């Protein structure tokens, strides 16, 4: 167990830069998730830590030791591959014992540790099976057990849940987190599923086109996103183009004037407003809006608002039956209200607004 430090890590290919100057500190026992859209460089970063991809520049330190140029077998990382990569010609027991054998652990201790980790991974009694005689979920747990049993300095997982069905995924998520905490493993976890990252990780690293956009806890990223990309990527967010007028006033591209947090503004800023922070009322404070669409989602209902040409999405718990708001229908006039502090100006880069918003 130890810390993991990435210091200005870069990886360039002939035509692309897969990873660009990534700096990251993972504390001992911390669980950090690398999160980002496909092709943003998550796998490349993880594989550089494991030693399968050579960095173009930058350094990697594991437990304070510079391993930038160390071969994979000299790094003491435990990796769970997306494909599991179990040894097909070895039994489950032999697969799990492999790392201990390489570390020259004596036979008796090896057997004891293999038994223990198989129990932890709920694989007791399967030690003599071959990988092909296991279900996908069991294979996944063997891959976990094989990486865990050696007590690696850093535990690395590349989308380990992506081959499991939704129900199993939710279960294994909790299991991995429990094991990680119980063993105090320093963990780097790659996923493109934000829910997975939010539920499992102590901190998240949001990446985009090879760069780190923001590092923080789930709450920090959600409540205080550094830019429009993070705001749109973590959870849902209304992202509106326009120009700040007076302090606390934002003129959208289609002409509506929206209240916002008074902030020093830079050109190109975007107004970010979470859908659930918008309240709909019949009377009182608020901007007049027309309902363009109402989508019933069970626990929640989604309201698509039209404020003089500016589209906003609001989300609220579905009102109880009999509540007047239950009857809201497209075409109805409502008042949309939010605390101006909830509407923030965020810097944006070209390409940050991926959806229909703006």
């Amino acid at each position, binding site marked *: 167990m130890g810390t993991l430090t990435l210091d200005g890590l870069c990886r360039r290919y002939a035509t692309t830069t897969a990873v660009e100057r990534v700096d990251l500190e993972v504390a001992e026992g911390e669980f950090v998730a690398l999160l980002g859209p496909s092709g943003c460089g998550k796998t490349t970063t993880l594989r550089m830590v*494991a030693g399968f991809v050579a960095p173009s520049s930058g350094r990697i330190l594991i437990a304070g030791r510079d391993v930038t140029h160390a071969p994979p*077998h000299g790094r003491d990382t435990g*990796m769970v591959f997306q494909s599991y*990569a179990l040894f097909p*010609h070895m039994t489950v027991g032999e697969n799990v014992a*492999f790392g201990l054998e*390489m*570390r020259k652990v004596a036979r008796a201790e090896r057997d004891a540790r293999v038994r223990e980790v198989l129990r932890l991974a709920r694989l007791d009694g399967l030690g003599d099976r071959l990988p092909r005689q296991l279900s996908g979920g069991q294979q996944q747990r063997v891959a976990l057990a094989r990486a865990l049993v050696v007590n690696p300095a850093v535990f690395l997982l590349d989308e380990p849940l992506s081959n499991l069905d939704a129900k199993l995924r939710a279960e294994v998520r909790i299991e991995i987190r429990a094991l990680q905490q119980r063993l105090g493993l320093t963990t780097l976890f790659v996923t493109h599923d934000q829910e997975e990252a939010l539920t499992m990780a102590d901190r998240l690293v949001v990446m985009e086109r090879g760069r780190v956009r923001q590092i923080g806890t789930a709450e920090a990223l959600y409540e205080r996103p550094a830019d429009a990309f993070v705001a749109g990527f973590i959870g849902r967010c209304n992202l509106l183009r326009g120009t700040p007028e007076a302090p606390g006033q934002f003129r959208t591209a289609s002409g509506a004037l929206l209240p916002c947090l008074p902030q020093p503004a830079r050109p190109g800023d975007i107004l970010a407003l979470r859908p659930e922070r918008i309240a709909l009322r019949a009377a009182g404070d608020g901007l007049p809006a027309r309902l363009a669409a109402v989508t019933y989602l069970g626990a929640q209902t989604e309201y698509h608002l039209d404020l003089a040409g500016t589209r906003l999405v609001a989300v609220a718990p579905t009102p109880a039956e009999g509540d007047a708001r239950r009857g809201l229908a497209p075409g109805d006039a409502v008042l949309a209200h939010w605390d101006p502090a909830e509407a923030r100006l965020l810097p944006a880069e070209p390409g940050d607004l991926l959806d229909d918003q703006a």
Partner: protein
Amino acid sequence: MAALLLPATLLVLGLLVAPMAMLFRISLNQYDAALMMREALSAENYLRALADPYYREVLGTTLGVAFSCTLLALLIGFPAAYWLARMESRWKSLATILTLFPLLVGNVVRAAGWMALLGRDGAINAGLFGLGLVAEPWPMLYTTGAVIVGILAVVAPYMILTLAAVIESIPRGVEEAAANLGAGPMTAFRRVVLPLALPGVAAGCVLVFILCMNAYATPVLLGGPQFKMMAPAVYDQFVRGTNWPFGAALAFLLLIVTLVLTIIGSTILAGRSRSR
């Protein structure tokens, strides 16, 4: 289904089994200087071949050359096959074609090339002499070594391509997992790559061994008149000696020895890949 298999079955019967059956029948006949052969049912030809020290030596030479070439082809072929299988770039198909390149030249033409290279007045001796490294031409042609090198050049592509196909089917992730768990390259090879490649090793060795056992042009041209392997010996009996029954018996001995060794070898390798 059965009807669909019929033409293929007939073809195999006609092209393979029938000539073999004829050959076997002939091997039981007796040689007759005037008639060429006389109908008989005797094992005499087989007994003679096995008892004759000359043919025992020919068989021994054939086995020695075949085993040496198979082993060398495996040792040279494995690294080459691994490299080929793990190649990522667009050069991969080019490399595959280059591997096949030696097979574009027929055995006789290739052997003639070796003769020009290895002979008394060949390119190598001329070079050595020119550099003052040898006073007398170094005898290379008409040696067992020349035959082994010559056959190796023919069979190596078969070994490499057979192994490469199997190595390619081993996911790279498995090797990475071994390295990640602390196995150095040699250990990863011994514990993971080799066991998973064993079926390919077996197939490649069997293929190459059969090719070596039946080599004809290379031993004749590079081994010279004193050097004999089984296939040329069979030819001698049929064409020069016109002793068809004895030639047929030699051919069958060659077939049986090859078959038995092939079966033993692949059984051992298959057993190993299962147990590990």
